[in-house]
């Protein structure tokens, strides 16, 4: 027994070094898998508060750009108003109504919740955004997030007033997308290289892709509404060993100047995900 104590005393530094390393690595692996860390609640409150002040300061420098983006989005939305169409039977009318069920008997599926961005990284391999809108204001895990010019990411964690969004610029990010031209589906990922470019994988070679083609969110996604802007094709690589293209996509969203985003709530999200997962366990 005495020898054990002597041993510990002699190597106390090395043992504590190993201990701290193990604690760090455990924190790292658990946090990147589940996005739910030990005291995430408490630390998010502190860092969130700081980030919010900093973002208030920073927002003055990008006012002009934010204004331009909002004006552009306004113009685009006005074009989608039912009054601008001859036949008002457009599925997008859902996003305009505020009632749960409209006069034609169609029930609402998506609700757009505006939120302010109070934290944003784009230099790391796994990037997150922080939004000043949390569970009390209706933001929950799994909701989609779009910016003024294109999609941004998915909510991975939400505390009372702040939520954390896994940006498209994240190694584990995966969003179902399709080409606007012929609805060929694929999956949007990020290779960690350049924050202005994403990759669209698993696009079948039968699709007629050209540079400049528009990429939209697909109809298969459980959290993203279909036909939201993702980006444009900037490069085409044909993988000789498989039957798929890998496309380089220029993001529509400018991740460097993101100020305001919309969180999208899908009323039938839980229902759809439950059904999708129920098959996996059988």
């Amino acid at each position, binding site marked *: 027994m005495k020898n054990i104590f002597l041993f510990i005393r002699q190597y106390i530094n090395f043992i504590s070094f190993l201990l*701290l390393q193990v604690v760090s690595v455990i924190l790292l692996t658990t946090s990147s898998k589940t996005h739910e860390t030990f005291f995430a609640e408490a630390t998010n409150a502190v860092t969130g508060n700081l980030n919010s002040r900093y973002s208030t300061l920073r927002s003055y420098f990008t006012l002009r750009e934010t204004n331009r983006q909002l004006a552009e989005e306004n113009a685009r939305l006005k074009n989608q108003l039912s009054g601008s169409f001859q036949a008002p039977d457009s599925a997008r009318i859902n996003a305009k109504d505020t009632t749960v069920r409209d006069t034609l008997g169609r029930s609402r599926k998506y609700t757009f919740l505006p939120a302010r961005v109070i934290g944003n990284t784009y230099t790391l391999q796994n990037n997150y955004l922080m939004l000043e809108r949390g569970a009390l204001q209706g933001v929950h895990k799994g909701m989609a997030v779009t910016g003024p010019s294109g999609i941004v990411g998915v909510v991975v964690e939400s505390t009372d007033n702040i939520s954390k969004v896994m940006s498209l610029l994240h190694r584990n990010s995966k969003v179902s997308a399709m080409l606007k031209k012929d609805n060929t589906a694929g999956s949007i990922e990020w290779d960690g290289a350049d924050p202005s470019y994403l990759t669209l994988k698993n696009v079948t070679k039968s699709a007629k892709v050209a540079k400049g083609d528009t990429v939209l969110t697909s109809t298969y996604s459980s959290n993203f509404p279909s036909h939201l802007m993702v980006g444009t094709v900037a490069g085409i690589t044909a993988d000789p060993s498989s039957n798929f293209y890998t496309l380089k996509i220029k993001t529509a969203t400018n991740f460097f100047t993101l100020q305001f985003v919309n969180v999208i709530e899908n009323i039938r999200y839980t229902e759809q995900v439950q059904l999708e997962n129920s098959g996996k366990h059988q």
Partner: protein
Amino acid sequence: MSTLVKNIIRFVLFIGVQVYILNQIPPLHQFIVPYLYFLYILWLPFSLGRFPLMLIAFFFGLSFDYFTGTTGLHAAACVMIAYIRPFLLSLLIPKESTEQSYVEPSISSMGWAPYSLYAGLLTFIHHFYLVLLEWLQFGNFVYFLGKVTATTGVSLMLIFVTEMLFSRKAKFRTNK
């Protein structure tokens, strides 16, 4: 100003500068991330024992981690350099004269060449370990090599710019 107060202010300043200035710089290239925050650990006083040194480094790294959302990544790298620091210092400087007469490592207390070697080696070890942990998650060897060398270069440049801008006067230890 006492050494304790000075180091507490540095703790806040280094994390603030790293999170709100250096991390906000639009990336020039995927290999280049300007890291400077770990200079805090290089500047800690000689008199700290190895265990308190590692504990401070762990909490310093962890507080930075909570801002970037990578819990534990930078903490591990900081603990690593805090563990190696005393070995390196005892190799690089004549123990009796310097450690007894100066408070903390700096160019004026150690001399140009030993200090550069000290900063260079610890920067390299920090980035090597940091990128290794990242690499184990993603796995791409070219990325690993490129990022270690490029980031070390950029960090060293930042360190020397900082040293020149804020030349710390070498304080002699007084017998109180």
